[in-house]
């Protein structure tokens, strides 16, 4: 068998195993639109704009989805139950060894799962894919204590700037979350490279994204495989008002750093007006996962 064919079959096996895992857990596969009316509001993710229908005088600007998250949440709010999707997603301004303008995402939602339950589910999925190394689970705060001797949750913008300066790094950042991320990339990521499977959970509330906040932390987690970020998950916020607030925060930040902004997606908020069920969801980068798996 040629190397190309070997790799194609290996990839196919991975996708088959993922599907089998979800089918056996009674999770329904869905397919949602990838051309959307609104760009993402995420401050550090940029949508790719596409112009359509110019020749038929119905010109419109659409945006390739950067993740199927909101479209899947529409389904959840309408009673879809547990769902998963494997799709291509597109992001502008991405470059590097582990980044590109398009990649394959596995996204899934489990009803009545909290964050820890969902992490357990991912461990089972990894096992089904042949990844059975020891699992490390460590909170964001604990990781900073252990690998950097830093009390991250009790460091404000001023304190974080001082830490960055003491490490000889620029402290020219506007928000605490940016400095938290700088310190994470600088201090923590190189340390967790030795760990095959590492979950980091309970992010500082400034980095909540769309996760539920409790006290000073958000029930958000990330999965790192040998120091490479592979998954990002939340115990999901449920009401339209919470979504509106989170979108507005991101839009405000985009405006502050002079990025293209869009209005809050009112259609989405209308569609989820009855709220999402209590659930947790996660997005997994398939190419990055594939590169760590030997099926």
């Amino acid at each position, binding site marked *: 068998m040629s190397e190309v064919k070997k790799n194609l079959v290996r990839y196919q096996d991975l996708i088959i195993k993922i599907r089998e895992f979800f089918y056996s857990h009674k999770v329904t596969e869905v397919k949602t639109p990838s051309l959307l009316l609104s760009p993402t509001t*995420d401050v*550090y*993710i940029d949508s790719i704009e596409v112009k359509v229908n110019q020749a038929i005088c119905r010109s419109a600007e659409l945006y390739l989805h950067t993740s199927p998250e909101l479209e899947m949440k529409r389904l959840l709010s309408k009673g879809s139950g547990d769902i998963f999707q494997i799709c291509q997603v597109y992001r502008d*301004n*991405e*470059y*590097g*060894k*582990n*980044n590109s303008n398009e990649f394959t995402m596995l996204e899934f939602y489990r009803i009545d799962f909290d964050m820890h339950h969902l992490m357990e589910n991912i461990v089972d999925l990894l096992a089904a894919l042949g990844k059975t190394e020891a699992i490390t689970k460590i909170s964001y705060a604990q990781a900073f204590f252990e690998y950097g001797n830093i009390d991250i949750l009790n460091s404000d913008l001023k304190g974080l700037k001082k830490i960055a300066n003491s490490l*000889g*790094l*620029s402290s*020219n*950042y506007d928000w605490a*979350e*940016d400095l938290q*991320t*700088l310190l*994470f*990339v*600088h201090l923590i*990521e*190189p340390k967790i490279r030795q760990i095959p499977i590492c979950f980091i959970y309970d992010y500082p509330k400034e*980095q909540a*994204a769309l996760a539920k906040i409790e006290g000073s932390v958000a029930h958000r987690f*990330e999965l790192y495989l040998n120091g490479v*970020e592979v998954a*990002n998950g939340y115990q999901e916020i449920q009401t339209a008002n919470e979504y509106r607030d989170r979108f507005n925060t991101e839009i405000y930040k985009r405006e502050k750093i002079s990025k293209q902004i869009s209005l809050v997606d009112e259609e989405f908020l209308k569609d989820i007006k009855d709220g999402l069920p209590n659930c947790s969801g996660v*997005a997994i980068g398939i190419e990055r996962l594939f590169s760590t798996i030997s099926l």
Partner: protein
Amino acid sequence: MNYSTSQFKNGMKLMLDGNPCSIVNNEIVKPGKGQAFNRVKFKDLITGKTLEKTYKSGESLEGADVMELEMQYLYTDGEKWHFMEPESFEQFDLSEESMGSAINYLVEQDNCIVTLWNNNPITVVPPIQVILEVIDTDPGLKGDTAGTGGKPATLNTGVVVQVPLFVGIGDKVKVDTRTNEYSGRA
């Protein structure tokens, strides 16, 4: 001239905390929900130390005017070590501190790489392999030719290297300057 993170590449010479440094490794890290960073490993060209820094993509650093030139080692007057650039015949000198371990391996007329920063020499890298003469060592055991054991030998630059037992005073030996190891008889 300033260089932005998007121009960073291995081997690029930049100013860091007042010292010229060379990029050893440059990694772009874009957290899913965060901004993009460059995690960069540098070698300080003066101290030789490795430094790790992380920059927000788009930050920039001042370039360092650093050149590596092949030169001939001329002589030492005890305080300075003198070198000549063979094309321009321009001469440069380095202090003992800047010479570092190169002191152990250079004999007159040897060629080596001298790094200039703002036209001042800052470091010298000797050839990977040099030929030096044994000026002192204990007599070897009779009949030992396989070189199974070892003994210290002082070479003509003053450096001490472990050599096989059969090597005697006056012998010329090859030394690997990266490891300070004997690599054969010359």
